[in-house]
């Protein structure tokens, strides 16, 4: 008790000096921030703004001629059937990949949260794809998907099913890309869900059990709601990731067959780096940015609404 008084006294007196000290430390703080500010500024913000600027020009990247075309690039983009196709492909990919990876991630997490033998090994195995380089994984999957020699179709043939020709079939190629995308994402979702599950107090389950809740009811009314914040976080990050998918498509299908996997990321690559249309490619990038921004905004709205509803 005697100790607390001088402390209070000190705090009271220290208020102004603290403020002064903060102010005095500002240059030092700025100094420590400098590397981040400079690096982000040079390599993120400046190129991002420059790209916005370029989207109003027609330029191949080397020509001294760089005519200003105003909104022409955007107009051309919105009137191009290629763009709408890419948008559709990307939305399908993003939705399918996100939902499937969420569901599988949750199932795996719930299963591996139980006391089973070798669960550390299983957890590691499910996480492995997350740290596998996408390009390497894509190359291997390309072999797995080979219609005649691939493991997948041989396995299917073994069970009496004639597998599709996957990457060369316009109606299956995107499915194949989604499968690999999910395979690569599940481990990450699992880890986040596992962490969330560890935080669920046992007492809730015990209470539910006492009330006579079945295992399914315990999952549905205890686990699921308590995982909602994680689900929200995972949905946002997965969608942002999915909208930017490029490397898998680049390695596995090059956007084909018949543009059935021509996601926006690959569409942008084609125009920026194969066709040397930097202005048009920048416009694609900004439309993509706006899209991701809007989707994330909607999600934040929805999640807030959801939280209020629960209250």
């Amino acid at each position, binding site marked *: 008790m005697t100790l607390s008084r001088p402390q209070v006294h000190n705090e009271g007196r220290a208020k102004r000096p603290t403020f002064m000290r903060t102010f005095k430390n500002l240059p030092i703080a700025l100094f420590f921030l400098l590397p981040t500010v400079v690096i982000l500024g040079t390599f993120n913000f400046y190129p991002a703004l420059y790209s916005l600027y370029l989207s109003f020009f027609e330029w*191949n*990247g*080397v*020509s*001294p001629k760089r005519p200003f075309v105003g909104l022409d690039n955007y107009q051309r983009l919105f009137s191009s059937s290629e763009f709408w196709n890419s948008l559709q492909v990307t939305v399908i990919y993003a939705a399918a990949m996100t939902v499937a990876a969420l569901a599988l991630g949750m199932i795996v997490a719930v299963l591996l949260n139980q006391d089973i033998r070798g669960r550390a090994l299983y957890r590691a195995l499910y996480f492995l794809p997350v740290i596998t380089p996408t390009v390497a994984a894509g190359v291997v999957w*390309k072999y797995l998907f*080979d*219609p*005649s*020699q691939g493991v997948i179709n041989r396995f299917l043939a073994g069970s009496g099913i004639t597998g599709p*020709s996957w*990457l*060369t079939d*316009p109606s299956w190629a995107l499915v194949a890309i989604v499968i690999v995308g999910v395979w690569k994402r599940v481990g990450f979702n699992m880890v986040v869900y596992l962490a969330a599950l560890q935080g669920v107090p046992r007492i809730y389950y015990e209470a539910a059990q006492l009330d006579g809740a079945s295992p399914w009811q315990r999952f549905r009314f205890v686990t699921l709601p308590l995982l909602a914040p994680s689900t929200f976080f995972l949905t946002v990050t997965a969608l942002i990731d999915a909208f930017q998918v490029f490397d898998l498509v680049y390695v596995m299908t*090059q956007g*084909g*067959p*018949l*543009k059935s996997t021509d996601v926006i990321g690959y569409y942008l690559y*084609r125009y920026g*780096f*194969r*066709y*040397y*249309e930097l202005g048009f490619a920048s416009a694609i990038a900004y439309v993509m940015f706006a899209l991701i921004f809007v989707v994330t905004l909607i999600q934040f709205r929805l999640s807030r609404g959801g939280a209020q509803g629960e209250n």
Partner: protein
Amino acid sequence: MRKYTPTFLAVILFSVFSLSLAQKLTFWHYWDGANGQVLQNLIDQYQEENPGITIEAVFVPGSELVSKLQTAIAGRQTPTMAISDLVAMPFLTSSGALVALDDYISESNVDMSDYFAGPLVYGLRDGKRYSLPVSASNLALFWNKAIFAEAGLDPDTPPETWEELVEMAQIIKEKTGKWGYELFTQGGEGTSWQWQVFLWNKGGDVLSGDLSSPAFNSEAGFEALQFWVDLIDEYEVSTVAPWGLFGRGEAAMVMDGSWMTQFFPMQVNFELGSAVFPYPEGGEIATNMGGEQIFIFNTDPETQQAAWNFIEWFSSTPVQVEWDRGTGFIPIKESVANDSTYIAWVKNARPLLLPFVESMPYANPRPPVTKYPQISDTLANYIVEALYGRMSPQEALNTAAQEAAPLLR
């Protein structure tokens, strides 16, 4: 301390003096592995013959070279000289950063009439020449002798015409169940540049003579594409599948590049042959062509001259013979292709290469226009539409032409 001063000064003076004499040229290229080594050996030889000149060869991966050059041009940090895939030449000359070579050429021993015509269409802009060919590759037929024998065909006789190709492919399909001919059906440049050979075989061309409009939607084009569709649907000797059937012994014939004369023998476990690509009866022998061009960036007259001196030496027939023997590239000059040492080397060391060397006079260039990559992708995309049976060859090529036309304006 003072004792060292004169020595120290002398060292500095000497360094400054020799720096002003020595000329250092940087040279960006994407030749890796053995090819890079051959280049380095030639550069060493040149440096020995020309004291005071240092050439620093900088390897840049092929997939990155053009974008690196793009950045270098934008940042005015260009190398003294560089090479590039010929397809990128119209793009690079549009930068205004390259040196026109016409004056250097006219004052030198370089004989332009010695070059094959194909590679020379690149590097031209507004009537001036900005690059010289330094290497070439092209396409021809490979066939699997084991499958030919299995089907009861003479393993040493490849088809000479499209008609023979179909005939043999059908026998192979019937006797062995294997595919007769492998088509590149995945779209992109792979489909486009292979199909162009069939187009030229029929006497057609990709663009109009003045490069201002698409010309592939001609009668020749329709017939060439119909032939591809027929190989799949009518004769049932080809299939839409991921590239690589021939390499795995699942298809008996394929069109592939001269570089594969080096790689196929290491990859496959069957005996193979190569031949000039078959042409239709009444049609023309043709092949497509890849390769590299060399060019100099704007700097000062002395540096440009020094770079040109190296290019002139590198382009000379004896050096090119060394170069092509070391790398397996196809000669870009007739004097090299007819050189007795070179021919002896091909016959003894790389007999599979012979048909490719013989094909070179029939090598057509892909259109040297800046928008070629986009035009090519568009064309390939509609070729694939026809192969999947979604459009007739006429409809596919007409639509492709409609989409490609605005790109040429």
